């Protein structure tokens, strides 16, 4: 009991452990598993990432004006929902061109508000 008593007393004169987070940002480690990023030019539309993704956060959907890419024969467009993603990086491991077409950055996932309709259609 006296040890904790003493510990509390010494803590009073120590600098607190608290980091002032919103004021001073935290440096993310380069290996932090953050947002999945995609490069449309490099993609070969093999759809391996879509099949590998456990929650189905990556979707290739047919659209009217498909992105201009010679590999894109079916007229697909890449969709990614960061609010559904579980950041397991299984898609990156499935990708035949990791670090070029699809890679995991160390950026923080976004914060959404009501207007974003994150649970909406896409």
């Amino acid at each position, binding site marked *: 009991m006296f040890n904790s008593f003493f510990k509390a007393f010494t803590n009073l004169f120590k600098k*607190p*452990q*608290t*980091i002032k*987070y*919103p004021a001073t940002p*935290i440096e993310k480690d380069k290996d932090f598993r953050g947002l999945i990023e995609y490069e449309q030019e490099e993609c070969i539309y093999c759809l391996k990432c879509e099949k590998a993704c*456990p*929650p*189905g956060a990556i*979707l290739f*959907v*047919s*659209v*009217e004006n498909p992105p201009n890419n010679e590999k894109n024969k079916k*007229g697909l467009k890449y*969709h990614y*929902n*960061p*609010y*559904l*993603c*579980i*950041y*397991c990086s299984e898609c990156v491991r499935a990708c035949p061109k990791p670090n070029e077409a699809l890679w995991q950055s160390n950026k*923080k*996932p*976004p*914060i*959404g*508000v*009501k207007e*974003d*309709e*994150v*649970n*909406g*259609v*896409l």
Partner: protein
Amino acid sequence: MFNLKKYRKRSPWILHYNAGSCNGCDIEILASLSPKYDLERFGIINTGNPKQSDIFLVTGPVTYRSRERLIELYIQMPEPKVVVAVGSCSCTGGVFRGMYNVEDGVDRYIPVDVYISGCATSPELIIDGLVKGLEILEKKTKSMEKPSKLFKDTTSREGIVSRRESALRVGEERDEEN
């Protein structure tokens, strides 16, 4: 006279409910109360009592059994209040989306103001989300809100919009046009 609204921002008391999550986000909420992140410097106290809380932190994809309690807690909280969905699975259902006992996200039952993504989310993101929630809290009026999904989206089956289904629907429409 005083503008009382500005005090809302300085003393938000939180209520935490786990609606079926994996504990990952819950322990991160606990960790953000710990000395390193110390939510109390924003005036945040974990009250555990709905009648005295301003911010409702919900984790988990809302299981069939916990939804009743979730709505009950939401109604017990006096206005103005902010609901924060913590973690991917409470935003959209995450990896549990479409399982038979899961309701795919909190916003089907109560109106959510801030969505914090990440699986599991980190204390850093929780602080980000709470700061955003405080901005919203300041602007709130004292009227009751309605959940966005339950009343808006009547076209799909039982109000649930499956991402994959709707994506396929878009594809079909395109095929018909051709």
